[in-house]
């Protein structure tokens, strides 16, 4: 009897009792599907996070200066000088000034629009926007504290459908002239999205808010050296302030790593919990196989009388368990796929986010392997019981 025939025999046996076989497989099906959805969710979350961070720029360091308890401070010149001194690590520098009063166009308050002051390098160099109309902010705007602004594609589309350049926006009681419109950068134009923004020269913004400059964005030349660049800035700031409570440097790529690390830990724990149901499924298979061996005692006796060796009987039952479990695995994979697709749709509908739940091929291959292995593992004991049955007793069994 060759191996193909053994599989055919197992296949027939599994199919001759569909309901029982299905119930036997159920634990495996649930386990495999659960592991797949969870791993898929993890992959989706990781990809979503990475995309989110990418759109802001994983090459950006954000420097916050509180100056707490120190009489000394730093200014924009200090930051520019730092970048100029380390061209191998640091690239662009821009002060960031948050403006909390809403901008006004006509009579409408733009409460959800991102509004801030930046340098001429921010939009195209730090954020990699491109100019759609007019121009971006220039050094002269900053130096002369001009009341000009550059707007995002969303603002332009909604408020200035007939061309924005030359139009005015009111911020904190002053009129700002729109000098440029940026091209769309986000996936879709939406309120509060990436393209819903207004930027003015940081010098102008600082005068408006009256606060000292305390936030900077710095880009690193090489993303893989972000930690090194961060360390450098921290060391320099430490020298100025003499205390590490006076500033905070945040690296987007470090944050991304931390986030994905956390997601991975979470997913691993969840997947491990789901994997327990695989073990439970395996025990279910063992249970049913033991019952089946008892039920088929006479069959085993007959087969032995006709010349089946112990290892042949053993093989028959192990293969049967493995086939049952593997079929469960395949069904589980299909169910897992289905659930992943449903989950993706649900996330789109419920959370308005484009996060896809995508089980990786590796996880599918592993799920299948694990289910087959569980069948063999938990089929072993019943199979051995069958193989060791005494043929005389087995033949007498009613």
């Amino acid at each position, binding site marked *: 009897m060759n191996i193909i025939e053994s599989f055919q025999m197992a296949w*027939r046996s599994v199919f001759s009792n569909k309901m029982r076989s299905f119930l036997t497989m159920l634990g495996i099906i649930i386990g495999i599907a659960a592991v797949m959805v969870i791993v898929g969710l993890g992959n989706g979350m990781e990809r979503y996070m990475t995309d989110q961070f990418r759109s802001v720029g994983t090459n950006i360091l954000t420097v916050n200066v509180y100056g707490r308890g120190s009489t000394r401070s730093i200014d924009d010149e200090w930051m520019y000088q730092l970048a100029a001194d380390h061209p191998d690590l640091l690239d662009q520098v821009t002060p960031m000034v948050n403006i909390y009063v809403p901008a006004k166009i006509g009579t409408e308050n733009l409460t959800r629009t991102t509004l801030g002051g930046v340098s001429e390098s921010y939009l195209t160099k730090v954020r990699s926007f491109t100019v759609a109309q007019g121009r971006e902010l220039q050094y002269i705007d900053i130096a002369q504290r001009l009341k000009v602004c550059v707007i995002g594609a969303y603002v332009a589309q909604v408020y200035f459908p007939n061309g924005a350049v030359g139009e005015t926006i009111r911020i904190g009681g002053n009129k700002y002239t729109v000098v440029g419109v940026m091209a769309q950068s986000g996936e879709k134009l939406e309120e509060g999205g990436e393209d819903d923004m207004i930027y003015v020269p940081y010098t102008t913004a600082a005068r408006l808010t009256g606060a000292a400059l305390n936030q900077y964005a710095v880009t690193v030349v090489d993303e893989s050296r972000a930690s090194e660049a961060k360390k450098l800035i921290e060391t320099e700031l430490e020298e100025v302030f003499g205390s590490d409570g006076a500033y905070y440097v945040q690296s987007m790529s470090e944050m991304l790593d931390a986030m994905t690390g956390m997601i991975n830990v979470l997913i691993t724990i969840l997947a491990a919990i789901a994997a327990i149901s695989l073990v439970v499924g395996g025990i279910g298979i063992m249970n049913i196989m033991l019952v089946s061996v008892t039920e088929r005692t006479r069959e085993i006796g007959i087969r032995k009388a*006709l010349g089946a060796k112990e290892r042949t009987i053993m093989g028959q039952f192990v293969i049967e368990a493995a086939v049952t479990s593997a079929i469960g695995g395949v069904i589980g994979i299909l169910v897992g796929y289905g659930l992943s697709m449903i989950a993706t749709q649900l996330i789109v509908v419920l959370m308005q986010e484009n996060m896809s739940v995508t089980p990786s091929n590796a996880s599918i291959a592993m799920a299948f392997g694990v289910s087959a292995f569980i069948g063999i593992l938990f089929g072993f004991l019943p199979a051995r019981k069958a193989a060791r049955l005494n043929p005389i007793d087995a033949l007498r069994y009613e």
Partner: protein
Amino acid sequence: MEELIRFDHVSKHYQMGDTLVKAADDISLTVERGEFVAIVGKSGSGKSTCMNIIGCLDVPTSGEYYLGGQAVSQMNKNKLAEIRNRMLGFIFQQYNLLPKLSVLENVEVPLMYAGMDRIARRRRALEVLETVGLADKTRNLPSQLSGGQQQRVSIARALAGSPAVILADEPTGALDSRTSREVLEMLQDLHDQGNTVVLITHDNSIAVTAERIVRLEDGRVVYDGSSDDPAAVVTHDEPLVRRSRRKGGTPA
């Protein structure tokens, strides 16, 4: 003639609490190739015990059993399985067909364990089913056949591997008298074709089909000789009567 089966002081003892049950007690006998032997005896006389030993399903507690000149006690489980497959064909009282396999597949089982390939197996199975007159039932399940037909399938299965010995344990026990006769005739035919047949029965009227009778009582051989001798059908606790009224008897 060539010696096929030899019991050399074979005993099978079971310790049941304080008492020692001698299921087979110092049995010595030989069966030659081509013989038709019936082992008879009352219930509990040790027939099945002997049959299990002859069939290599069980080993004696003492003494030696030689099958085809080989000492069976020297064989491991794998070797025993192989011997059962190659040298023995079993016919059981309860037919013992595999209920989920078709008639054809049932006959193929011993051939499959013998490692015969699929096509050769099928051809051989059809051939033996033809000889037992079931060529038209090959696709049926055993449950769709009458008792007599099922027993014929099991005869076909026993024959398929061309074994040295055909062992039939109460083959007519579950059949009516007419079908019983058919089955016995079939065994007779097998014998006529040169097969060695060992028939186990409690029924004298069936035992006389064989040319030689071995009578057991309490695990001992009390008669071994021709079935024509009136002494063959005498038991020690019953008068000398040829009990033909029990012909076709009921299951033990």
